[in-house]
């Protein structure tokens, strides 16, 4: 299988604090890769480095087979990103947000219109086309933010705690979108706190204090730690380390 992310000995320090301590992992084309860890374990830091928002202290990484040091702009053409902070323009309408981000990615107006109609229809948000983002409920905003993040058909989409603060039903629906994206061949790199969500991933890594402590499929991890569910796996790893 094709590797879309390769990380070797990635280190990020903030002063004397080591946020990422020699990370090594690969992510394969089309998989849903869960990036788990407690608050402050260094998940977001690592993700920002892979997205080109932050530069590493040392180590190597390739995203979509481009070097994150030298080919930042090529990396950026091939990724989508949705941050913890909700990040569409609140004072623009749904259609205006789509128009702006499509424009930035160089999508032609004709292609944009076609994709936008399909997107709004699939999400059942046709009526919200001309509503300001700020006026929509959080669940809708998150769905839209995700859809905009993959509007330009990136190879990989990075999701940083995409489902924070919404109810279980909305979360479940959000994961349906993630599966759809994955079916289209988009690799999904997702951080989360919710251990039930970890079960939805093809493979998960669990970080603690800047290091990756475990990396495998949820099934194997449960076997390895003789746990009933991912929640137990997570707690065992966190306790062993402490």
């Amino acid at each position, binding site marked *: 299988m094709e590797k879309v992310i390769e990380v070797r000995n990635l280190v990020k320090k903030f002063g004397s604090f080591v946020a990422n301590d020699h990370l090594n992992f690969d992510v394969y084309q089309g998989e849903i890769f869960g990036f788990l860890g407690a608050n402050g374990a260094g998940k977001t830091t690592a993700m*920002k480095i892979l*997205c*080109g*928002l*932050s*530069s590493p202290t040392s180590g190597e990484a390739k995203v979509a087979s481009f070097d994150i040091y030298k080919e*930042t*702009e090529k990396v*950026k*053409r091939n*990724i*989508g*990103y949705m*941050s913890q*902070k*909700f*990040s*569409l*323009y*609140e*004072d*623009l309408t749904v259609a*205006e947000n789509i*128009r*702006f*981000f499509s*424009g*930035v*990615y*160089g*999508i*032609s107006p004709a*292609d944009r219109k076609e994709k936008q109609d399909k997107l709004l229809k699939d999400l059942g948000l046709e009526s919200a086309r001309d509503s*300001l983002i700020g006026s929509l409920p959080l669940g809708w905003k998150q769905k839209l933010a995700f859809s905009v993040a993959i509007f*330009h*058909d990136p*190879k990989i989409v990075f999701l940083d705690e995409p489902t924070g603060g919404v109810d279980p039903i909305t979360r479940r629906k959000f994961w349906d979108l993630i599966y759809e994206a994955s079916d289209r*061949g988009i690799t999904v790199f997702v951080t989360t706190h919710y251990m039930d969500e970890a079960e939805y991933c093809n493979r998960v890594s669990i970080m603690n204090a800047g290091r990756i402590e475990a990396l495998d499929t949820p099934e194997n991890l449960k076997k390895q730690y003789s746990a009933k569910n991912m929640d137990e796996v997570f707690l065992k790893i966190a306790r062993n380390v402490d």
Partner: protein
Amino acid sequence: MVNYKIVNEKMKTIFYVIQKEFIQVKRNKVMLRMIVMIPLLQMLVLVFAATYDLKNVDIFLVDKDLSSTSRELAGKLEASPFFTINNTSFDPEDGENELLRNADDMVLVIPRGFERDLIRDDKASLQILVNAIDGQAAQLGYSYAASVIRDFNKNIIAEWKGLPEFNPPYQINTVSRFWYNSELEYKWYMAPGVLAILVTLIGLFLSGMSLVKEKEQGTIEQLNVTPIKKIQFLTGKLIPFVVIALFDLSFGLIIAKVVFNLPIVGSLGLVFGFGILYLLGILGLGLLISTVADTQQQVMFVTYFFMMIFILMGGIFTPVDSMPHWAQLVNEANPVFHFMKVMRMVVLKGSNFGDLIHEFVALCILGFTFLSLAVWRYRKTA
């Protein structure tokens, strides 16, 4: 995977940023109101209020002589449009108390025997006490009063000595004409200066706020993961602000023309050309502040600081020529100083480009410096 023709047409990307910025300004009701109200208020309030025309000097008269000459002198002062005799007393201390209370601006003490001395010795003394808390007004008031007294003096000598008018044998006669603002209309002097401040205020705040707002809302991260070039992004952000600030400049000029009948002697092309050049620098500075700050409050503080220094140093209220030498040197780095000068020279004097080479070069250097610092400081990757 669908491969969209990723046309790297820089102009198109810039266009999308411009479009987004305009929509955001349009949606921001407070901003819209500011864009219209600031020129109106600044032009109407500041220009009218910040006047140096001396109109009302309140005099406290201590006339101990009570002679016809002293009364005549008081009458002359009262007859002038600048002076009002507010109070009288025989005790100079009363006058001093009035000065302390800020109730009067000047105390005129005519000593006992004023008329007698004048007739007998051909000379007499007067005392004038001026409230000089505001040095400029004090000096003006004093020199007006002195000139009334001098006139009075001449006439008295002429009357008494029977000469046509006191004329020393050799006298240099000064005939003065005030060029470029022949009626010394203070509003005409203030208006171009206030226009310069207006453009500065709008430009600095719009650009200062815009980037930091994206930081606060987190949209900047979303943009930083896109392939947009920072030059494209910043250009797209600046162009709408140039347009808005130029709109305000035109609006302000129209108000000045209609309300103050400001003569616009020079070329409007030159005014707007310099306006654009100046704005590039101001917007660059705003962006620079915006890249360093994390919140809108921080931007407010820093912007305010620069505004105060630029404006007070720039010569809106006080002539730069009378500032100490070091201050004049510092002013070379003050864009407001240069632009204010350009505005006054072009609007009031009709100066042409050749007269403004120095300002042109200075504004080019400042603009280039601020803009390149802003571009350099803005990083897509932290």
